[in-house]
Protein backbone atom coordinates (compact mmCIF):
# COMPACT_ATOMS: atom_id res chain seq x y z
CA UNK A 1 0.00 0.00 0.00
CA UNK A 2 1.27 3.40 -0.87
CA UNK A 3 0.89 6.12 1.72
CA UNK A 4 0.90 9.82 0.92
CA UNK A 5 1.54 12.65 3.41
CA UNK A 6 1.28 16.29 2.39
CA UNK A 7 2.98 18.95 4.51
CA UNK A 8 3.08 22.69 4.07
CA UNK A 9 5.87 25.03 5.05
CA UNK A 10 7.69 28.16 3.96
CA UNK A 11 10.03 28.42 0.96
CA UNK A 12 13.46 29.89 1.76
CA UNK A 13 14.76 29.16 -1.73
CA UNK A 14 12.38 28.59 -4.60
CA UNK A 15 12.08 25.70 -7.00
CA UNK A 16 10.57 22.30 -7.70
CA UNK A 17 12.34 19.08 -6.91
CA UNK A 18 11.66 15.39 -6.42
CA UNK A 19 13.85 12.62 -5.10
CA UNK A 20 14.44 9.99 -2.49
CA UNK A 21 14.69 11.34 1.05
CA UNK A 22 17.82 11.13 3.19
CA UNK A 23 17.07 11.98 6.81
CA UNK A 24 19.99 13.08 8.97
CA UNK A 25 19.00 13.70 12.59
CA UNK A 26 22.12 15.70 13.45
CA UNK A 27 22.87 19.29 12.48
CA UNK A 28 25.07 19.22 9.38
CA UNK A 29 26.54 21.79 7.00
CA UNK A 30 27.41 21.71 3.30
CA UNK A 31 31.09 22.70 3.53
CA UNK A 32 33.57 20.50 1.68
CA UNK A 33 34.59 18.84 4.94
CA UNK A 34 31.02 17.80 5.79
CA UNK A 35 29.92 16.71 2.30
CA UNK A 36 32.61 16.16 -0.34
CA UNK A 37 32.58 18.58 -3.27
CA UNK A 38 34.08 15.90 -5.52
CA UNK A 39 31.64 13.09 -4.77
CA UNK A 40 28.72 14.35 -2.65
CA UNK A 41 29.70 11.94 0.12
CA UNK A 42 28.71 12.74 3.69
CA UNK A 43 31.86 12.86 5.83
CA UNK A 44 30.67 14.72 8.94
CA UNK A 45 31.64 12.65 11.98
CA UNK A 46 28.66 11.15 13.77
CA UNK A 47 26.18 11.93 10.99
CA UNK A 48 23.44 9.33 10.37
CA UNK A 49 24.16 9.57 6.64
CA UNK A 50 27.95 9.29 6.96
CA UNK A 51 29.37 7.48 3.93
CA UNK A 52 26.21 8.00 1.85
CA UNK A 53 25.98 10.05 -1.37
CA UNK A 54 23.61 13.03 -1.37
CA UNK A 55 23.53 13.55 -5.14
CA UNK A 56 19.97 14.00 -6.40
CA UNK A 57 18.43 13.33 -2.98
CA UNK A 58 16.06 15.42 -0.90
CA UNK A 59 18.16 16.03 2.20
CA UNK A 60 16.27 16.38 5.49
CA UNK A 61 18.10 17.74 8.58
CA UNK A 62 17.46 20.03 11.57
CA UNK A 63 19.65 22.98 10.55
CA UNK A 64 23.22 23.77 9.56
CA UNK A 65 26.45 23.16 11.44
CA UNK A 66 30.00 24.34 10.92
CA UNK A 67 31.64 26.49 8.32
CA UNK A 68 30.12 29.47 6.49
CA UNK A 69 31.72 27.98 3.38
CA UNK A 70 28.69 25.67 3.41
CA UNK A 71 27.05 28.41 1.33
CA UNK A 72 29.43 28.25 -1.62
CA UNK A 73 30.21 24.56 -1.20
CA UNK A 74 26.50 23.81 -1.60
CA UNK A 75 26.37 26.05 -4.67
CA UNK A 76 29.47 24.32 -6.07
CA UNK A 77 28.03 20.85 -5.58
CA UNK A 78 24.75 21.85 -7.23
CA UNK A 79 26.02 23.94 -10.15
CA UNK A 80 29.64 23.01 -10.86
CA UNK A 81 30.61 19.47 -9.75
CA UNK A 82 26.98 18.20 -10.05
CA UNK A 83 27.13 16.15 -6.86
CA UNK A 84 24.61 18.26 -4.96
CA UNK A 85 21.25 17.37 -3.42
CA UNK A 86 18.01 18.09 -5.30
CA UNK A 87 16.35 19.95 -2.43
CA UNK A 88 16.58 20.75 1.28
CA UNK A 89 14.04 20.31 4.05
CA UNK A 90 14.95 21.62 7.52
CA UNK A 91 13.35 22.45 10.83
CA UNK A 92 15.00 25.80 10.16
CA UNK A 93 17.00 26.56 7.03
CA UNK A 94 19.98 28.52 8.34
CA UNK A 95 21.02 31.77 6.60
CA UNK A 96 24.18 30.05 5.32
CA UNK A 97 22.20 27.29 3.63
CA UNK A 98 19.62 29.77 2.26
CA UNK A 99 22.54 31.59 0.61
CA UNK A 100 23.83 28.33 -0.91
CA UNK A 101 20.44 27.03 -2.01
CA UNK A 102 19.52 30.27 -3.83
CA UNK A 103 22.86 30.28 -5.69
CA UNK A 104 22.61 26.52 -6.29
CA UNK A 105 19.06 26.98 -7.61
CA UNK A 106 17.52 24.24 -5.46
CA UNK A 107 14.43 24.61 -3.26
CA UNK A 108 14.84 24.86 0.52
CA UNK A 109 11.83 24.62 2.83
CA UNK A 110 11.28 24.94 6.58
CA UNK A 111 8.59 25.60 9.21
CA UNK A 112 6.57 22.58 8.09
CA UNK A 113 3.37 21.78 9.94
CA UNK A 114 4.93 18.51 11.18
CA UNK A 115 8.52 17.86 12.24
CA UNK A 116 10.24 16.70 9.04
CA UNK A 117 12.89 14.76 10.96
CA UNK A 118 10.34 12.36 12.45
CA UNK A 119 7.71 12.50 9.69
CA UNK A 120 9.96 11.78 6.72
CA UNK A 121 11.86 8.48 6.54
CA UNK A 122 15.01 7.79 4.57
CA UNK A 123 13.92 6.16 1.31
CA UNK A 124 10.56 7.97 1.05
CA UNK A 125 9.87 9.65 -2.29
CA UNK A 126 9.57 13.38 -1.64
CA UNK A 127 8.37 16.17 -3.91
CA UNK A 128 8.94 19.83 -3.07
CA UNK A 129 6.95 22.61 -4.68
CA UNK A 130 8.24 26.00 -3.55
CA UNK A 131 7.11 28.64 -6.06
CA UNK A 132 8.16 31.82 -4.25
CA UNK A 133 10.63 32.77 -1.50
CA UNK A 134 8.90 33.59 1.77
CA UNK A 135 5.62 32.04 0.57
CA UNK A 136 3.87 28.72 1.16
CA UNK A 137 5.63 25.57 -0.05
CA UNK A 138 4.25 22.04 -0.34
CA UNK A 139 6.09 18.83 0.50
CA UNK A 140 4.50 15.59 -0.67
CA UNK A 141 5.82 12.37 0.84
CA UNK A 142 5.10 9.02 -0.79
CA UNK A 143 5.94 5.87 1.17
CA UNK A 144 5.74 2.37 -0.23
CA UNK A 145 3.97 0.11 2.26
Amino acid at each position, binding site marked *: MEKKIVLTGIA*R*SKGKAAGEAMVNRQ*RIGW*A*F*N*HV*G*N*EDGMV*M*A*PGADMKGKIVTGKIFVYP*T*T*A*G*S*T*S*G*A*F*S*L*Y*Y*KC*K*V*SHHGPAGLICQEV*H*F*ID*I*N*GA*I*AGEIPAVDKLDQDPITTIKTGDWVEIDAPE*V*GEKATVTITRKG
Partner: protein
Amino acid sequence: MKAKMKLTTYQQEMLDGKHGEAKQFCMDKLLDFGKAVEATEMVDLVLTLNCCPIYVKDRLEPKRLAKLNEYDLGHSPLYDPIFAMKDAHVHDESGTECGNDPYMCQLDKAGEIKGQPNGKPWNFELPGKGSFRLDEEMVAGFKAGYDKLMEHGWLPWLSCNPYFNTRIPKMGEYAASSESSAACYINTILGARTNREAAINTVYCAYTGCLPKYGTHLDEYRAAKVIIELTDEVRDNIKGMADWGALGAAIAEKAGNRIMAVLNLPKKMGPGATKNLISCASPGMNDPMLHLMGYTPESPTLEAAFKGKMPKNPERYTVTMDDVVEMYHHLNAIEPAPGPEKAKPVDIVFFGCPHATWDEVREVARLVKGKKVKKGVHLWVQTDTPTYFMAQHYGDTKTIEDAGGHIFHQTCIAMSPIRHYPKGTVIATDSFKYVKLGGGFGPKWIYGNPEALVNAAITGVFTPTARWDYWSKPREKCLASEKERPLYQGEKPMVD
Protein backbone atom coordinates in the same frame (compact mmCIF):
# COMPACT_ATOMS: atom_id res chain seq x y z
CA MET B 1 13.07 47.16 -7.31
CA LYS B 2 12.96 43.48 -6.40
CA ALA B 3 12.48 43.55 -2.66
CA LYS B 4 10.53 45.53 -0.15
CA MET B 5 13.79 46.92 1.01
CA LYS B 6 14.40 50.55 1.80
CA LEU B 7 17.48 51.59 -0.14
CA THR B 8 19.53 54.77 0.13
CA THR B 9 19.83 56.88 -2.98
CA TYR B 10 23.30 55.51 -3.63
CA GLN B 11 22.22 51.88 -3.13
CA GLN B 12 19.32 52.42 -5.54
CA GLU B 13 21.76 53.92 -8.06
CA MET B 14 24.00 50.85 -7.74
CA LEU B 15 20.96 48.65 -8.37
CA ASP B 16 20.00 50.75 -11.37
CA GLY B 17 23.45 50.31 -12.88
CA LYS B 18 24.60 53.92 -12.53
CA HIS B 19 27.83 52.83 -10.83
CA GLY B 20 28.78 50.07 -13.20
CA GLU B 21 27.94 46.53 -14.14
CA ALA B 22 29.68 44.82 -11.21
CA LYS B 23 27.88 46.82 -8.53
CA GLN B 24 24.56 46.23 -10.24
CA PHE B 25 25.22 42.50 -10.56
CA CYS B 26 26.13 42.23 -6.89
CA MET B 27 23.24 44.40 -5.62
CA ASP B 28 20.86 42.19 -7.52
CA LYS B 29 22.20 39.06 -5.78
CA LEU B 30 22.15 40.73 -2.37
CA LEU B 31 18.53 41.77 -2.81
CA ASP B 32 17.54 38.16 -3.63
CA PHE B 33 19.09 37.10 -0.35
CA GLY B 34 17.59 40.08 1.50
CA LYS B 35 14.15 39.00 0.38
CA ALA B 36 14.70 35.44 1.66
CA VAL B 37 15.73 36.69 5.10
CA GLU B 38 13.03 39.40 5.15
CA ALA B 39 15.47 42.28 5.50
CA THR B 40 14.04 45.79 5.24
CA GLU B 41 17.26 47.77 4.88
CA MET B 42 20.99 47.47 4.23
CA VAL B 43 23.88 47.98 6.63
CA ASP B 44 27.02 49.90 5.69
CA LEU B 45 30.11 47.68 6.09
CA VAL B 46 33.59 48.55 7.36
CA LEU B 47 35.10 45.10 6.77
CA THR B 48 34.52 42.14 4.48
CA LEU B 49 36.44 38.92 5.06
CA ASN B 50 36.13 36.10 2.57
CA CYS B 51 38.35 33.60 0.74
CA CYS B 52 40.67 34.05 -2.26
CA PRO B 53 39.53 32.15 -5.41
CA ILE B 54 41.36 29.78 -7.73
CA TYR B 55 41.21 31.60 -11.07
CA VAL B 56 41.64 29.35 -14.09
CA LYS B 57 40.48 29.38 -17.67
CA ASP B 58 37.82 26.81 -18.59
CA ARG B 59 37.21 25.31 -15.18
CA LEU B 60 34.86 22.70 -16.64
CA GLU B 61 37.56 20.99 -18.72
CA PRO B 62 37.27 17.47 -17.26
CA LYS B 63 40.87 17.00 -16.02
CA ARG B 64 40.94 20.49 -14.53
CA LEU B 65 37.50 20.08 -13.01
CA ALA B 66 38.62 16.90 -11.27
CA LYS B 67 41.48 18.83 -9.64
CA LEU B 68 39.25 21.78 -8.77
CA ASN B 69 36.77 19.44 -7.14
CA GLU B 70 39.58 18.51 -4.74
CA TYR B 71 41.06 21.96 -4.21
CA ASP B 72 38.27 24.49 -4.59
CA LEU B 73 36.25 25.15 -1.47
CA GLY B 74 33.46 26.00 -3.90
CA HIS B 75 33.77 29.78 -4.03
CA SER B 76 35.97 30.31 -7.07
CA PRO B 77 33.37 30.12 -9.87
CA LEU B 78 31.40 32.88 -8.13
CA TYR B 79 34.16 35.32 -9.03
CA ASP B 80 34.24 34.42 -12.73
CA PRO B 81 31.43 36.77 -13.86
CA ILE B 82 32.85 39.64 -11.75
CA PHE B 83 36.38 39.09 -13.08
CA ALA B 84 34.93 39.30 -16.60
CA MET B 85 33.54 42.80 -15.94
CA LYS B 86 35.76 45.71 -16.85
CA ASP B 87 34.68 48.14 -14.14
CA ALA B 88 34.79 45.81 -11.13
CA HIS B 89 36.33 47.30 -8.01
CA VAL B 90 35.56 46.74 -4.34
CA HIS B 91 33.71 49.45 -2.52
CA ASP B 92 36.79 50.83 -0.75
CA GLU B 93 36.10 54.48 -1.64
CA SER B 94 33.66 54.65 1.29
CA GLY B 95 35.97 52.87 3.73
CA THR B 96 34.82 49.27 3.28
CA GLU B 97 38.04 47.27 3.58
CA CYS B 98 37.99 43.84 1.97
CA GLY B 99 40.36 40.96 2.44
CA ASN B 100 40.64 37.21 2.56
CA ASP B 101 41.34 34.23 4.75
CA PRO B 102 44.62 32.33 4.43
CA TYR B 103 44.72 29.93 1.52
CA MET B 104 46.58 27.14 -0.26
CA CYS B 105 50.24 28.08 0.22
CA GLN B 106 52.60 30.91 1.15
CA LEU B 107 52.74 32.96 -2.04
CA ASP B 108 56.27 34.29 -1.64
CA LYS B 109 57.44 30.66 -1.32
CA ALA B 110 55.25 29.32 -4.10
CA GLY B 111 58.39 28.70 -6.18
CA GLU B 112 59.64 26.19 -3.62
CA ILE B 113 56.80 23.80 -4.11
CA LYS B 114 58.11 22.79 -7.54
CA GLY B 115 60.86 20.68 -6.02
CA GLN B 116 60.72 17.45 -4.11
CA PRO B 117 58.68 17.32 -0.95
CA ASN B 118 60.73 19.32 1.48
CA GLY B 119 58.75 19.41 4.67
CA LYS B 120 57.29 22.79 3.89
CA PRO B 121 53.58 23.23 3.74
CA TRP B 122 52.11 21.78 2.00
CA ASN B 123 54.64 19.56 0.27
CA PHE B 124 55.90 16.96 2.68
CA GLU B 125 57.03 13.42 3.08
CA LEU B 126 56.09 11.09 5.91
CA PRO B 127 58.58 8.24 6.25
CA GLY B 128 56.83 4.93 5.63
CA LYS B 129 53.50 6.56 4.83
CA GLY B 130 54.05 8.48 1.62
CA SER B 131 54.15 12.06 0.50
CA PHE B 132 51.87 14.91 -0.42
CA ARG B 133 52.46 17.69 -2.89
CA LEU B 134 50.33 20.55 -4.05
CA ASP B 135 49.24 20.60 -7.66
CA GLU B 136 51.19 23.31 -9.47
CA GLU B 137 48.32 24.30 -11.73
CA MET B 138 46.14 24.87 -8.69
CA VAL B 139 48.86 26.95 -7.01
CA ALA B 140 49.15 29.05 -10.20
CA GLY B 141 45.34 29.45 -10.13
CA PHE B 142 45.49 30.69 -6.56
CA LYS B 143 48.21 33.19 -7.51
CA ALA B 144 46.11 34.37 -10.49
CA GLY B 145 43.04 34.76 -8.26
CA TYR B 146 45.07 36.69 -5.71
CA ASP B 147 46.49 39.01 -8.40
CA LYS B 148 43.02 39.66 -9.76
CA LEU B 149 41.72 40.53 -6.28
CA MET B 150 44.60 42.94 -5.75
CA GLU B 151 43.63 44.67 -9.03
CA HIS B 152 40.10 44.97 -7.68
CA GLY B 153 41.24 46.70 -4.51
CA TRP B 154 41.06 43.77 -2.08
CA LEU B 155 43.76 43.98 0.60
CA PRO B 156 46.44 41.29 0.96
CA TRP B 157 45.43 40.02 4.41
CA LEU B 158 45.36 36.26 3.78
CA SER B 159 44.65 35.93 7.47
CA CYS B 160 41.81 34.85 9.73
CA ASN B 161 42.72 37.57 12.25
CA PRO B 162 42.74 40.99 10.52
CA TYR B 163 40.74 42.23 13.51
CA PHE B 164 43.88 42.00 15.70
CA ASN B 165 46.17 44.31 13.80
CA THR B 166 44.99 45.26 10.32
CA ARG B 167 41.34 46.34 10.28
CA ILE B 168 39.81 46.64 13.71
CA PRO B 169 36.07 47.36 13.63
CA LYS B 170 34.80 49.36 16.57
CA MET B 171 31.66 49.06 18.65
CA GLY B 172 28.45 49.52 16.69
CA GLU B 173 30.03 49.23 13.24
CA TYR B 174 28.96 46.52 10.78
CA ALA B 175 31.17 43.90 9.18
CA ALA B 176 30.73 40.84 6.96
CA SER B 177 33.03 38.05 8.07
CA SER B 178 32.76 34.60 6.56
CA GLU B 179 35.59 33.62 8.85
CA SER B 180 33.61 32.31 11.80
CA SER B 181 36.26 32.83 14.46
CA ALA B 182 36.75 36.42 13.31
CA ALA B 183 32.98 36.97 13.30
CA CYS B 184 32.72 35.75 16.86
CA TYR B 185 35.66 37.87 18.02
CA ILE B 186 34.29 40.97 16.28
CA ASN B 187 30.90 40.54 17.98
CA THR B 188 32.09 39.36 21.37
CA ILE B 189 35.23 41.37 22.09
CA LEU B 190 35.03 44.37 19.75
CA GLY B 191 31.26 44.98 19.91
CA ALA B 192 30.93 45.49 16.15
CA ARG B 193 28.21 43.49 14.41
CA THR B 194 28.64 40.67 11.90
CA ASN B 195 26.97 37.42 11.02
CA ARG B 196 29.01 34.35 10.41
CA GLU B 197 28.39 35.65 6.98
CA ALA B 198 27.14 33.20 4.42
CA ALA B 199 30.17 33.05 2.18
CA ILE B 200 28.46 33.82 -1.13
CA ASN B 201 27.21 37.14 0.22
CA THR B 202 30.76 38.17 1.14
CA VAL B 203 31.77 38.06 -2.51
CA TYR B 204 28.97 40.43 -3.49
CA CYS B 205 28.99 42.79 -0.52
CA ALA B 206 32.70 43.54 -1.05
CA TYR B 207 31.77 45.25 -4.32
CA THR B 208 28.78 47.18 -2.90
CA GLY B 209 29.92 47.93 0.66
CA CYS B 210 26.47 47.02 1.93
CA LEU B 211 24.54 43.95 2.99
CA PRO B 212 20.93 43.21 3.99
CA LYS B 213 20.45 43.81 7.71
CA TYR B 214 19.62 40.46 9.28
CA GLY B 215 20.69 37.89 11.86
CA THR B 216 23.42 38.96 14.25
CA HIS B 217 23.18 42.56 13.03
CA LEU B 218 19.94 42.70 15.05
CA ASP B 219 19.57 42.78 18.83
CA GLU B 220 17.13 39.87 18.89
CA TYR B 221 19.77 37.57 17.34
CA ARG B 222 22.45 38.80 19.75
CA ALA B 223 20.53 38.25 22.98
CA ALA B 224 21.77 35.68 25.49
CA LYS B 225 19.36 32.80 26.03
CA VAL B 226 21.20 30.87 28.71
CA ILE B 227 23.74 31.47 31.49
CA ILE B 228 26.92 29.41 31.81
CA GLU B 229 28.91 29.75 35.01
CA LEU B 230 32.47 28.48 35.40
CA THR B 231 33.45 26.94 38.73
CA ASP B 232 36.31 28.65 40.56
CA GLU B 233 38.39 25.53 39.83
CA VAL B 234 37.93 26.10 36.09
CA ARG B 235 38.58 29.82 36.37
CA ASP B 236 41.87 29.20 38.20
CA ASN B 237 43.23 26.19 36.29
CA ILE B 238 42.81 26.87 32.58
CA LYS B 239 46.35 27.05 31.23
CA GLY B 240 47.50 26.83 27.65
CA MET B 241 45.86 27.39 24.29
CA ALA B 242 44.22 23.98 24.02
CA ASP B 243 42.62 24.49 27.44
CA TRP B 244 40.97 27.65 26.15
CA GLY B 245 39.71 25.80 23.08
CA ALA B 246 38.40 22.90 25.15
CA LEU B 247 36.73 25.32 27.54
CA GLY B 248 35.04 27.13 24.63
CA ALA B 249 33.87 23.79 23.29
CA ALA B 250 32.54 22.72 26.69
CA ILE B 251 30.67 26.00 27.05
CA ALA B 252 29.19 25.68 23.56
CA GLU B 253 28.08 22.13 24.25
CA LYS B 254 26.31 23.10 27.49
CA ALA B 255 24.54 25.96 25.74
CA GLY B 256 23.29 23.62 23.00
CA ASN B 257 23.65 25.98 20.02
CA ARG B 258 22.16 28.94 21.92
CA ILE B 259 23.82 32.27 22.73
CA MET B 260 25.17 32.26 26.25
CA ALA B 261 26.30 34.69 28.91
CA VAL B 262 29.45 33.33 30.57
CA LEU B 263 30.17 34.15 34.21
CA ASN B 264 33.27 33.80 36.36
CA LEU B 265 35.93 34.07 33.66
CA PRO B 266 39.57 34.69 34.58
CA LYS B 267 40.40 38.37 34.91
CA LYS B 268 43.17 38.49 32.31
CA MET B 269 42.65 36.61 29.08
CA GLY B 270 45.20 37.62 26.45
CA PRO B 271 44.63 37.71 22.69
CA GLY B 272 45.51 34.04 22.19
CA ALA B 273 43.22 32.97 25.03
CA THR B 274 40.18 34.93 23.84
CA LYS B 275 40.79 33.90 20.23
CA ASN B 276 40.94 30.21 21.13
CA LEU B 277 38.00 30.37 23.53
CA ILE B 278 35.87 32.13 20.94
CA SER B 279 36.84 29.99 17.97
CA CYS B 280 34.47 27.37 19.35
CA ALA B 281 31.87 29.38 17.45
CA SER B 282 31.99 27.74 14.05
CA PRO B 283 32.33 24.12 15.03
CA GLY B 284 30.42 24.37 18.29
CA MET B 285 27.56 26.80 17.71
CA ASN B 286 25.85 28.57 14.82
CA ASP B 287 25.50 32.08 16.26
CA PRO B 288 28.82 33.98 16.39
CA MET B 289 28.23 35.65 19.72
CA LEU B 290 29.15 35.00 23.31
CA HIS B 291 28.52 37.39 26.15
CA LEU B 292 31.76 37.01 28.10
CA MET B 293 30.87 38.96 31.21
CA GLY B 294 33.67 41.38 31.96
CA TYR B 295 34.86 41.40 28.33
CA THR B 296 31.92 41.92 25.95
CA PRO B 297 31.47 45.68 25.64
CA GLU B 298 27.72 45.67 24.96
CA SER B 299 27.05 43.52 28.02
CA PRO B 300 28.08 45.33 31.21
CA THR B 301 25.25 43.48 32.99
CA LEU B 302 23.36 40.20 32.53
CA GLU B 303 20.23 42.23 31.81
CA ALA B 304 22.10 43.87 28.91
CA ALA B 305 23.35 40.49 27.66
CA PHE B 306 19.73 39.30 27.50
CA LYS B 307 18.86 42.56 25.69
CA GLY B 308 16.39 43.50 28.41
CA LYS B 309 14.48 40.23 28.14
CA MET B 310 16.00 38.17 30.94
CA PRO B 311 13.46 35.68 32.32
CA LYS B 312 13.00 35.50 36.09
CA ASN B 313 14.86 32.20 36.29
CA PRO B 314 17.06 31.95 33.22
CA GLU B 315 18.38 28.52 32.31
CA ARG B 316 21.71 28.17 34.03
CA TYR B 317 24.47 25.59 33.69
CA THR B 318 27.80 25.12 35.41
CA VAL B 319 31.00 24.13 33.61
CA THR B 320 33.38 22.11 35.80
CA MET B 321 36.88 20.70 35.25
CA ASP B 322 35.19 17.35 34.54
CA ASP B 323 33.52 18.96 31.51
CA VAL B 324 36.85 20.25 30.24
CA VAL B 325 38.50 16.84 30.76
CA GLU B 326 35.59 15.19 28.97
CA MET B 327 36.07 17.57 26.05
CA TYR B 328 39.77 16.67 25.86
CA HIS B 329 38.84 13.01 25.69
CA HIS B 330 36.20 13.68 23.03
CA LEU B 331 38.61 15.76 20.91
CA ASN B 332 41.28 13.11 20.71
CA ALA B 333 40.21 11.20 17.67
CA ILE B 334 42.66 8.43 18.54
CA GLU B 335 41.09 6.00 20.96
CA PRO B 336 41.46 5.16 23.73
CA ALA B 337 41.72 8.53 25.40
CA PRO B 338 45.34 9.37 26.00
CA GLY B 339 47.25 9.07 29.21
CA PRO B 340 51.01 8.65 29.62
CA GLU B 341 50.60 4.90 29.06
CA LYS B 342 48.83 5.59 25.78
CA ALA B 343 51.59 7.57 24.14
CA LYS B 344 51.06 7.90 20.41
CA PRO B 345 53.40 8.53 17.49
CA VAL B 346 52.76 11.73 15.53
CA ASP B 347 53.62 12.87 12.00
CA ILE B 348 52.68 16.55 11.99
CA VAL B 349 52.44 19.01 14.87
CA PHE B 350 50.89 22.31 13.97
CA PHE B 351 49.95 25.55 15.65
CA GLY B 352 47.88 28.47 14.45
CA CYS B 353 44.26 27.72 13.58
CA PRO B 354 43.00 30.42 13.71
CA HIS B 355 46.34 32.05 12.86
CA ALA B 356 48.71 32.17 15.83
CA THR B 357 48.97 35.43 17.76
CA TRP B 358 52.40 36.69 18.70
CA ASP B 359 52.01 35.37 22.25
CA GLU B 360 51.40 31.91 20.79
CA VAL B 361 54.39 32.11 18.42
CA ARG B 362 56.63 33.20 21.30
CA GLU B 363 55.45 30.31 23.41
CA VAL B 364 56.31 27.75 20.73
CA ALA B 365 59.74 29.39 20.34
CA ARG B 366 60.30 29.29 24.11
CA LEU B 367 59.34 25.62 24.32
CA VAL B 368 61.43 24.48 21.34
CA LYS B 369 64.50 26.63 22.04
CA GLY B 370 67.72 24.62 21.97
CA LYS B 371 65.92 21.37 21.04
CA LYS B 372 65.59 19.47 17.77
CA VAL B 373 62.46 18.29 16.03
CA LYS B 374 62.69 14.53 15.46
CA LYS B 375 63.63 13.48 11.94
CA GLY B 376 60.55 12.64 9.87
CA VAL B 377 58.24 14.70 12.12
CA HIS B 378 56.99 18.13 11.01
CA LEU B 379 56.51 21.14 13.26
CA TRP B 380 54.55 23.95 11.61
CA VAL B 381 53.43 27.31 12.96
CA GLN B 382 51.07 29.37 10.83
CA THR B 383 50.40 33.02 11.54
CA ASP B 384 49.34 36.31 9.98
CA THR B 385 51.71 38.53 8.02
CA PRO B 386 52.34 41.19 10.72
CA THR B 387 53.15 38.50 13.30
CA TYR B 388 55.30 36.56 10.80
CA PHE B 389 57.56 39.56 10.31
CA MET B 390 57.53 40.46 14.00
CA ALA B 391 58.67 36.95 14.78
CA GLN B 392 61.44 37.30 12.20
CA HIS B 393 62.52 40.63 13.59
CA TYR B 394 62.60 39.55 17.22
CA GLY B 395 64.24 36.15 16.67
CA ASP B 396 61.33 33.76 17.31
CA THR B 397 61.52 32.53 13.71
CA LYS B 398 65.20 31.73 14.03
CA THR B 399 64.59 29.79 17.25
CA ILE B 400 61.83 27.72 15.63
CA GLU B 401 63.81 27.13 12.42
CA ASP B 402 67.03 26.28 14.27
CA ALA B 403 65.07 23.53 16.00
CA GLY B 404 63.90 22.21 12.62
CA GLY B 405 60.39 23.70 12.67
CA HIS B 406 58.81 26.03 10.12
CA ILE B 407 56.75 29.16 10.39
CA PHE B 408 54.40 30.38 7.66
CA HIS B 409 52.06 33.20 6.82
CA GLN B 410 49.30 33.68 4.19
CA THR B 411 48.35 30.02 4.39
CA CYS B 412 46.63 27.41 6.50
CA ILE B 413 46.78 23.63 6.63
CA ALA B 414 42.97 23.63 6.48
CA MET B 415 43.12 25.02 2.96
CA SER B 416 45.11 22.18 1.46
CA PRO B 417 43.20 19.06 0.45
CA ILE B 418 43.83 17.13 3.67
CA ARG B 419 41.52 14.41 2.46
CA HIS B 420 44.32 13.42 0.10
CA TYR B 421 47.16 13.32 2.64
CA PRO B 422 48.95 9.97 3.00
CA LYS B 423 46.85 7.28 4.68
CA GLY B 424 47.27 7.06 8.43
CA THR B 425 48.69 10.58 8.88
CA VAL B 426 48.53 11.64 12.54
CA ILE B 427 48.21 15.38 13.18
CA ALA B 428 48.57 16.92 16.63
CA THR B 429 47.35 20.46 17.30
CA ASP B 430 45.98 22.83 19.93
CA SER B 431 43.17 23.95 17.62
CA PHE B 432 39.67 22.85 18.59
CA LYS B 433 38.46 24.46 15.40
CA TYR B 434 40.68 22.37 13.22
CA VAL B 435 40.16 19.06 14.95
CA LYS B 436 36.47 19.67 14.29
CA LEU B 437 36.92 20.96 10.74
CA GLY B 438 39.21 18.13 9.78
CA GLY B 439 37.35 15.48 11.72
CA GLY B 440 35.68 14.08 8.64
CA PHE B 441 38.90 13.64 6.70
CA GLY B 442 41.30 10.74 6.77
CA PRO B 443 44.00 11.83 9.25
CA LYS B 444 43.87 11.00 12.93
CA TRP B 445 43.89 13.90 15.34
CA ILE B 446 45.52 14.55 18.68
CA TYR B 447 44.51 17.56 20.73
CA GLY B 448 46.90 18.95 23.31
CA ASN B 449 48.55 21.95 24.87
CA PRO B 450 51.65 23.61 23.37
CA GLU B 451 53.96 22.05 25.95
CA ALA B 452 52.82 18.54 25.07
CA LEU B 453 52.75 19.32 21.34
CA VAL B 454 56.31 20.62 21.19
CA ASN B 455 57.41 17.61 23.23
CA ALA B 456 55.66 15.41 20.66
CA ALA B 457 57.52 17.13 17.80
CA ILE B 458 60.84 16.50 19.58
CA THR B 459 60.23 12.90 20.68
CA GLY B 460 57.93 11.87 17.83
CA VAL B 461 55.46 10.69 20.44
CA PHE B 462 52.55 12.51 21.99
CA THR B 463 51.91 12.25 25.70
CA PRO B 464 49.47 14.56 27.42
CA THR B 465 50.67 16.66 30.32
CA ALA B 466 50.22 14.86 33.61
CA ARG B 467 47.77 17.43 34.88
CA TRP B 468 45.03 15.67 32.91
CA ASP B 469 45.58 12.56 34.99
CA TYR B 470 45.16 14.76 38.01
CA TRP B 471 41.97 16.36 36.76
CA SER B 472 40.59 13.07 35.42
CA LYS B 473 40.36 11.49 38.88
CA PRO B 474 37.95 12.16 41.70
CA ARG B 475 39.62 14.95 43.68
CA GLU B 476 40.11 12.89 46.84
CA LYS B 477 42.26 10.44 44.85
CA CYS B 478 44.35 13.11 43.17
CA LEU B 479 48.02 13.23 44.04
CA ALA B 480 49.58 16.65 44.09
CA SER B 481 52.68 15.08 42.51
CA GLU B 482 50.70 14.35 39.32
CA LYS B 483 50.51 18.03 38.62
CA GLU B 484 54.29 18.10 38.48
CA ARG B 485 55.25 14.84 36.73
CA PRO B 486 57.42 15.55 33.69
CA LEU B 487 56.43 14.56 30.18
CA TYR B 488 57.49 11.19 28.77
CA GLN B 489 60.88 11.66 27.15
CA GLY B 490 61.30 8.29 25.45
CA GLU B 491 61.92 7.64 21.80
CA LYS B 492 59.47 4.84 21.19
CA PRO B 493 55.76 4.83 21.75
CA MET B 494 54.78 2.64 24.67
CA VAL B 495 51.78 1.37 22.77
CA ASP B 496 51.08 1.51 19.09
